[in-house]
């Protein structure tokens, strides 16, 4: 599906990501994790062509994305970014923007098909109920849903998400990730998402990519990547890794300084 070969890229003269090699299979749900400033979002930006690679390349189904047309790429890869600008429009109009890559050169109105697809995407994401409200006035959780609906309207094969659960309460976190994993299964979407929360990443992702200081540190199923040695080494934090009793995925527990001191002394 997607192959990243020797990718080196970054902002201006600083090359932040160095020699990233990554292969993602069809219908996989992959999480990118790593400390703040480790290059997770930079990697995502490389995949969406916001940043140009300095070396190496990214190949989508065997084709280098640098040689694909912008529209062509947008029909295959959709991005849910942490954007704060929304303009002034209704939720429905916002989702309809996702159809832009499918418009013909001299087409000025949405076709029936566009409207049907938009409607379907809003149904899937449960955004239909507030479709007429202004996008600037809905809650954070609803916004995230609208962003996902817009990405789906592009009818992509690959969905990229940049921290889809930040600033959301636990209900919406689980809701969004359940939705993403449903989309992954039912629509056969390949999903790559940057996640901050290690427990959510462990629970939902098939494979995890751990990035540190612009380099790939480890890649594998959650139980391979998330062990306490790795986490303590990369995140410089003392943790306990247990098993989630229901899903038997690794679960990370943090310990406060006070408790650590107590242990030491006691």
């Amino acid at each position: 599906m997607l192959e990243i070969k020797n990718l080196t890229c970054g902002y201006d003269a600083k090359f932040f990501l160095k020699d990233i090699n990554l292969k993602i299979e069809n219908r996989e749900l992959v999480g990118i994790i790593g400390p703040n400033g480790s290059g997770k979002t930079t990697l995502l930006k490389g995949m969406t062509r916001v940043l140009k690679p300095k070396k190496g390349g990214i190949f989508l189904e065997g084709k280098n994305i640098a040689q694909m047309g912008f529209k062509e790429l947008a029909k295959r890869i959709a991005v849910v970014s942490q954007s704060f600008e929304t303009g002034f429009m209704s939720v429905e109009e916002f989702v309809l923007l996702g159809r832009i890559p499918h418009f013909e050169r001299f087409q000025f109105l949405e076709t029936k098909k566009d409207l049907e697809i938009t409607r379907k995407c809003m149904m899937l994401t449960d955004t239909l109920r507030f479709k007429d409200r202004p996008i600037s006035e809905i809650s954070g959780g609803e916004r995230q849903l609208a962003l996902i609906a817009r990405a789906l309207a592009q009818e992509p094969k690959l969905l990229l998400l940049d921290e889809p659960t930040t600033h959301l309460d636990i209900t919406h976190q689980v809701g969004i990730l359940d939705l993403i994993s449903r989309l992954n299964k039912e629509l056969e979407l390949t999903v790559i998402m940057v996640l901050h929360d290690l427990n959510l990443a462990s629970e939902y992702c098939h494979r995890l990519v751990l990035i540190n200081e612009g380099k790939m540190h480890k890649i594998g199923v959650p139980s391979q990547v998330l062990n306490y040695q790795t986490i303590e080494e990369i995140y410089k934090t003392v943790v306990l890794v247990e098993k989630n009793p229901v899903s038997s995925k690794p679960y990370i527990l943090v310990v406060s300084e006070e408790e650590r001191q107590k242990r030491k002394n006691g």
Partner: protein
Amino acid sequence: MKKKVISWILWISILCSLLLGIVLFSLCTGSAGISLKKILGVILEGRGTIEYSILFDIRLPRIILGFAVGGALSLAGVILQGMFRNPLVEPYTLGISGGAAIGVCLSIVLRLNRPLGILSMPISGFLGAALIILLIYTLSIRKGILKIQGLLLTGVMISFISSSLIMLIMSISRAEDLHGIIFWIMGSLEEPNWFLIKLASFIAIFGLAVSYLFCFSLNAFSLGEEEALHLGINVERTKRLLFILTSLLTGFSVSVAGIIGFIGLVVPHFIRMFVGNDHRILLISSFLCGAAFLIFCDTLARTVISPMELPVGVLTGILGGIFFVYALTKRQVALGRK
């Protein structure tokens, strides 16, 4: 969807009839009042009467030029606002009009009309506008001055610099050029050359047609440049083409009609309140409304203190300036919330 299209058609027809009404009003009013009924008679009678030449040699050219310049400036305003995602930018506040003005002044003083003919002013106006746009473009991209205050301040400074440069040019120019420059700076739709009027109309309508190729790109830009890229828009190329288009529209309008400020600010702002932010309807309705507004202002300008004539740029400047301050204070509230 159908509802939307119907409401769009409705808005376009409302604006078209408004434009038509203002055109007729403008044809009728003036020092020699010719009533509507009489106009038909005059047209049927044909060439030769005094009324005929008042209508077709004096009033109609001004109306057509008002249509072209008003439409072009409003369109340039909408496009710039879409690109910078800010309702306060327009050719005048960004200093583009000032740049075009320097170009035109230089062409008057350097007598470029000898080698280039009547096209000297439009060409130099376009070059001046393009130069300023290029400057703003590099500043906003290279230095990242995308923040609106910075952009507007840069625009104001460019306007200051260009008006100082114009004064410098005036102070060293010959007396016979001086009159031309002053008259031209104040902005007027008085243009005796039919060819330029036709050319201006052609450029305005051409600009409107071309802008429609970018209506979805402009819609996508409202989410930010990165999101536009995600939606398959070639951001760099689109921006470059739109910059060229706006400098063509502004440069040409300014070089034919002088500095007519704030139209590109007032009109789109007003239109947005009614039709929303979808550029598919916003572009055409701003064009029509801008045309109607400028023809109306011009009619006022030539009748208010008749038989003397106010420069139309003064009128739009006063109206637009007041409006700008009003919009800015309103905007502060919105910015504060962010």
